[in-house]
């Protein structure tokens, strides 16, 4: 079992100038910086820097208690959380159990329309269509609160490092929109000044002197510069204006290792890429569908495409999660279907044709504003050359247009699909995408066997039991192939010769606090 692939030393030498500001790339947050409303990566990396939750993740994606002293339950359903004392927000207010309970209640409340509301849906009292109190949350005293879940979940604490579960100071609730412009947190960093967030330009952070968690900064602060294109960020890194870049643009895939010798990283990240075949299409359900899905999957030469199109910046998939997630396995039963196998692919396709002959073209929908054309064409070509059918890519001008057809169940073939983990757990890669009726299950996969295993995994008393169930659930997926796994996106990062100790976390974001400069 492989739980992580992070490189670099585990105990970085704390040398360098402790006042140095590290500049790094980012993108303009889509919304005011509110813990329960920031679900995209641009705002996410700022939030994890300025907030400390009950738990934080290390480079391998393992949760370490931060504000929490302990999180425990006998039955995986009734949790008791005790807090370390002495934590403060940067405005001086103490971090108490109320800071957590109020923030979670705010995030879950229907009329607040928070993007991350669904993260609270397993806490007792949650409602998707009315304003209700989270009755499962009870403040015992300043440093203790209890959480009652609607059903047992062994890996529930694992998600508590996600942005949505951060505490909020009481001042936030008086005017949340204004608070989101100048958020006050309790993390290793804080806003350099009021108005440090220059929209569309950058946000400056300085170290928080009152911070007392496990991520104490070895530098003086961060300047997160927002780039509209990675190409200009790369040029800035080359020109010495940017210290750390956490994503290399496609145009530099061939050169970044020589441009930044010894100062790059290329390792699998918690990003799963696939294409889905809708169940509402003729030929793609039942026994015939199973055969066709397997045939298509085995017709794709993943290794060659990741090497040629992506220059090794993708890793061929062997499951439905990611190598950085605990419980990942490259030896699941039935994973052979993800290997290029021309003979078997042709055989399965012919067997499906014997049930009902396939006519016409086979297309894969994608949004052409996302840089997907290259690999979609390569996948289509691979299928075409192997099976002898007319396979093509079907471009949509925008993500919005493609999503509309997915939601309306109006696809004529496959569709690009991707998932980036919110928190390092297998459940997060499986439940939202493949559970019957789940939010992002647009292609209408429905399997009671999968649903049962997922539920059993969630309710398991130990993490090991849960992992076994989740792996079994994935073996069901490998048989049914609602989604054809392609590869995991790698995190490709580079840094200048002015900085040291650059280690990337499970979420493709550098562990900023460990970076030293000078």
């Amino acid at each position, binding site marked *: 079992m492989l739980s992580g692939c992070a490189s670099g030393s585990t105990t970085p030498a704390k040398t360098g100038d402790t006042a140095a500001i590290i500049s790094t790339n980012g993108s*303009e*947050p*889509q*919304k*005011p910086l509110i813990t329960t409303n920031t*679900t*995209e990566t641009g705002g996410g990396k700022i939030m994890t820097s300025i907030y400390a939750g009950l738990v934080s993740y290390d480079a391998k994606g393992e949760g370490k208690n931060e504000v929490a002293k302990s999180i425990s339950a006998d039955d995986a359903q009734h949790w008791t959380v005790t807090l370390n004392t002495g934590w403060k927000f940067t405005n001086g207010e103490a971090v108490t159990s109320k800071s957590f309970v109020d923030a979670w209640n705010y995030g879950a409340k*229907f*009329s607040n*329309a*928070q*993007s*991350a*509301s*669904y993260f609270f*849906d397993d806490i007792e009292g949650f409602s*998707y*269509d009315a304003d209700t109190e989270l009755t499962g949350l009870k403040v015992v005293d300043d440093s203790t609160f209890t959480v009652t879940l609607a059903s047992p979940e062994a890996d529930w604490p694992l998600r508590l490092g996600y942005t949505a579960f951060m505490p909020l100071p009481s001042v936030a609730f008086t005017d949340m*929109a204004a608070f*989101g412009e100048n958020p006050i947190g309790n993390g290793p960093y804080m806003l350099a000044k009021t108005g440090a967030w*220059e*929209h*569309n*330009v*950058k946000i400056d952070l300085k170290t928080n002197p009152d911070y007392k968690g496990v991520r104490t900064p070895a530098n003086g602060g961060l300047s997160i*510069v*927002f*780039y*509209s*294109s990675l*190409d*200009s*960020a790369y*040029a*800035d890194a*080359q*020109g*010495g*204006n940017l210290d750390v870049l956490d994503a290399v643009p496609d145009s530099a895939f061939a050169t970044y290792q020589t441009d930044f010798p010894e100062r790059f990283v290329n390792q699998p990240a918690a990003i799963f890429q696939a294409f889905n075949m809708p169940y509402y299409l003729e030929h793609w359900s039942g026994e015939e569908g199973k055969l066709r899905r397997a045939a298509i999957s085995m017709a794709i030469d993943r290794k060659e495409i990741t090497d040629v199109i992506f220059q090794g910046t993708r890793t061929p998939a062997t499951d439905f999660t990611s190598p950085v997630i605990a419980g990942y396995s490259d030896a699941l039963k039935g994973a052979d279907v993800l290997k290029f196998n021309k003979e078997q692919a042709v055989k399965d396709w012919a067997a499906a044709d014997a049930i009902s002959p396939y006519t016409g073209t086979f297309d894969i929908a994608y949004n052409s*504003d996302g840089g997907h054309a290259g690999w979609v064409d390569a996948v289509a070509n691979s299928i075409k050359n192997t099976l002898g059918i007319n396979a093509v890519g079907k471009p949509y*001008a*925008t*993500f*919005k*247009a*493609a*999503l*509309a057809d997915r*939601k309306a169940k109006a696809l004529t073939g496959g569709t690009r*699909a*991707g*998932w*980036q983990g*919110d928190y390092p757990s297998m459940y997060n890669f499986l439940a*939202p995408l493949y559970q019957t009726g789940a*939010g*992002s299950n647009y292609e209408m996969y429905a399997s009671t066997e999968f649903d049962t295993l997922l539920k059993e995994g969630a309710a398991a008393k130990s993490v090991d039991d849960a992992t076994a169930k989740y792996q079994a659930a994935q073996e069901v997926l490998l048989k049914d192939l609602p989604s054809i796994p392609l590869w995991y996106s790698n995190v490709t990062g580079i840094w200048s010769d002015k900085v040291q100790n650059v280690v990337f976390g499970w979420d493709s974001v550098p562990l900023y606090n460990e970076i030293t400069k000078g």
Partner: protein
Amino acid sequence: MLWYTGKRLLQMIPVFFGATFLIYFMVFSLPGDPIAALFGDRQPAPGVIEQLRVQYHLDQPFIVQYFIYIGGFFHGDLGTTYSGRAVSDVMAAAFPITARLALLALFFESVAGILVGLVAGLRKGKLFDASALVVSLLLISVPTFVIGFILQYVFAVKLGWARTTVSSEAPLSELILPAIVLASVSFAYIVRLTRASVSENLGADFVRTATAKGLSRRRVVTVHVLRNSLVPVVTFLGVDLGSLMVGAIVTEGIFNINGVGGTVYKAIKLGEGPTVVSFIAVMVVIFVLANLLVDLLYAALDPRIRYAK
């Protein structure tokens, strides 16, 4: 003249309404739900999307949305972006920097373009003229982003003479390189326009007369040749100011400038009606004003052109 100017300004009113209506309609007609698309692969609860749609009036029919926008416009409220910022704030951030960039580019292309074009026209067929033609042909045929990346790589990354991207303060010195990139294509057109115009005027009767009167060559060239050759160039510059402002999108991307082009592009992709329309409305006004200025300049350059009452 005053009456003419007033009439032209009044024409802006129907142009403004027509343009905003059409553009709003086009943004409205883009396929897909803009709110759902904001969230990418991680969709929130359906109730959340529904409430946001109501908040941005996206549940209303087109005509209602348009009048909500126009109503707000007359109260000085241009609406909000999907990130919750006032559109007026976004405009206040984007326009000044783009205006500086565009004016700087306009300055470079007009000064350098007219100078090179003039010399080339005076020395038609000589080495300088031939080189000017080759260079301008190159600039016209090579896409801006190629020129941009090459100049950025050579001057900023390799030589270190300029900053690779424009920093948040955007001082004029950092805008020089982007302005040159932005000006490059128009510079080439101006060289060719001026050259053709100059060489044509050199053979005109009034130039021969001026030379015959015994005027110095300098005076003939500056007063008689150049002034008369500038009419087509000024027309081009007027239209170009508008395209420099909206068309800077490629240059802005390369040098990471948070300007008008990039903002409008992003807003169109998001389907953010109020942002797109507000920006375009200002662009329309700039276009109309620039054209008016050009027409008035005609009269100054060529006394034969007078605007009747």
